[in-house]
């Protein structure tokens, strides 16, 4: 098949809440190794698309496939096991756990699941624990030694940018095929944003992970993405290369027509 390199595919995905159609017949095709961005005005349904992919919502209709297999109806943890990890727009760390513990929870699926191994700390459990700790340090080390130094700090006490980093490290813990980042530069200043752009590119390079992201800052998206989809009122109004999107009239209308600062 020519579609061997398709990792994630959404076909006609629709979700309604009461009378409101939040996501309306969206098609997306994310190929292996891409950095793929979803952009659109506030309330366009971008985060809802994320929630539909990761099993937090179930699509009202349409299909979501990963590697050709439908993942509709999966609970979030099953979606993660299938190879999709994510971060959240408003950073959802476990605030009263340490940085290290947060990243360990991200590796939860790599621990033995049977109660006997867990309660008696059998050798297979201890091996998993050791490996997970080593891996957690490695993942934190990706963001530099300063993050490793913070490993025993409560997540709550971190700076905003560091919290974002820990969330990414947690998501990487399961070795995902697809990493979904919901506004990874939200609330960051220019220097932090530039740094985030750098590590997103490094994530693909170092971990071989495909990246799907939601981004508000157009200059970030344009520089980073291989491909961009634009949502407005829950519908995909455009899709293409960054340059195509930049000049697309519907997109300009969607953004500028509502006096939105880009």
């Amino acid at each position, binding site marked *: 098949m020519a579609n061997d390199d398709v990792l994630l595919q959404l076909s006609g995905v629709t979700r309604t809440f009461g009378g409101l159609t939040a996501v309306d017949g969206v098609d997306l095709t994310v190929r292996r190794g891409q950095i793929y961005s979803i952009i659109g005005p506030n309330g366009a349904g971008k985060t809802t698309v994320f929630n539909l992919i990761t099993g937090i919502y179930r699509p009202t209709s349409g299909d979501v496939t990963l590697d050709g297999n439908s993942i509709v109806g999966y*609970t*979030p*943890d099953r979606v993660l096991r299938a190879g999709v990890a994510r971060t959240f727009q408003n950073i*959802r760390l*476990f605030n009263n*756990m340490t940085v290290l513990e947060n990243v360990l*929870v991200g590796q939860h699926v790599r621990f033995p699941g049977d109660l006997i191994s867990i309660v008696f*700390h059998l050798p297979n459990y201890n091996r998993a624990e050791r490996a997970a700790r080593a891996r957690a340090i490695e993942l934190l080390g990706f963001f530099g030694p300063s993050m490793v130094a913070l490993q025993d700090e409560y997540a*709550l006490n971190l700076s905003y940018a560091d919290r974002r980093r820990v969330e990414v490290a947690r998501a990487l813990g399961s070795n995902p095929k697809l990493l979904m980042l919901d506004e990874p530069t939200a609330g960051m200043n220019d220097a932090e944003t530039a740094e985030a752009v750098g590590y997103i590119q490094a994530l693909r390079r170092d971990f071989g992970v495909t990246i799907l992201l939601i981004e508000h800052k157009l200059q970030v998206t344009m520089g980073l993405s291989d491909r961009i989809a634009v949502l407005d009122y829950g519908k995909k109004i455009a899709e293409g290369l960054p340059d195509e999107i930049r000049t697309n009239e519907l997109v300009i209308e969607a953004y500028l027509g509502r006096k939105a600062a880009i």
Partner: protein
Amino acid sequence: MSVRSGTRPEPAWRARLRALLRDTTLAGRPLEWYLSGWRLALILLVVMVIFPWLVGSTFVADAIAVGIYITLAVGLNIVVGYAGLLDLGYVAFFAIGSYAEATGTFGALQLNSVTGEVIHTPVLPFWPLLVIGALVAGIFGIVLGAPTLRLRGDYLAIVTLGFGEIVPILFNYFPFWFGNTGMSALPPADINLGGLTITFSDPLNRIPFYYVVLAVVALVILGSFSLRDSSLGRAWVAIREDETAAASSGVNLVRTKLLAFGLGATMGGLGGVLNGAYIGAISPNDFPFFVSITVLMMIVLGGIGSIWGVTLGAIILRFIDVDLLGRISQFVQANPVVNNPVSPLHFLSTVDFNQAKYLIYGIMLLLMILFRPQGIIPDVRRRRELKGIGAAVESTSAIGVLEREEAGAELAAVDTLDQTTYAGPGSDDIGRSGD
């Protein structure tokens, strides 16, 4: 954002105690070294092993009762303290364990229609029942939990309460268990080791049974520590902190909560089996709602989520129950101010403080939850949570709530799109996370 805003300077006595533990050395190590981790557990275990020989048989019966309550408290702590699920019907599993023991050791009562004699046929001895009773309770825990754990926290509390009420009613209803009269429950049979016979049935010598209880308590505490310091323990904390994020990190919510519920129920059943063998006769009236609350009280008093805390809570409540209230009654009645018939306090001489037990429990529970929700020996993480530090957006049944929340947000966003520009997407986040 500041975490330190809530912390007060350490009281002088505690600083002094800490210094004492640090500076006093024993065999080249400071005392605090001995009083941490597994060494503390070992010391306690040794003390408890020689306990009957230290105090004589008077306190052994009390110690058994305390041990049974510790089993219950540690078990409920897994549900309430670790997984953050409020179970108000924990007595159900205690009852199931007790009835399992009674049914097994004594057997169902039947009336011989020819002779009119009451006969009973034991099914199993105590030892396998210790496992079976626990497992049966655990299975009931899972059967009850499976459909209900999706409920938000306070609804779950009420459903479990309903279950706790139904179970004794059913034991009462079915003639198999002899209704309101209840039934006998037998202690373990004698063990014959060559010349030495260990007997569990002598009411004047409870020491052999004390060791059975001690072994169970030690295992339960050990298992509880082991669970806390495992991937499962982390998953429970993660669920308490933020269900949605936990699920998105690969934690299976239903399974993880069910495990907590099942494990808690298993320990409740274990306590029940011990209770049956110890009490010797049980009836549905032994399992009222009060028992569930008493165990909950032990946890809140000692420290939600803290194993040593809930153990201490069980000891304290039991002490209040069997000892302290009687002493207070004696003290008050012997007091000259009360004794004097013309004194305005004379009416106190007729008050039996044992009857005020549950009132005192209630007042203690209220004062603890208002003024020291983290308990006497707090669990570090639980103390932070109870002080509202880093509270998640929504801690109960997050997925359903998130869905509503976001549906509302999308609606609002669409409604107001025309008038708004982007309001710095991060601003809301910062406010929330620093709450």
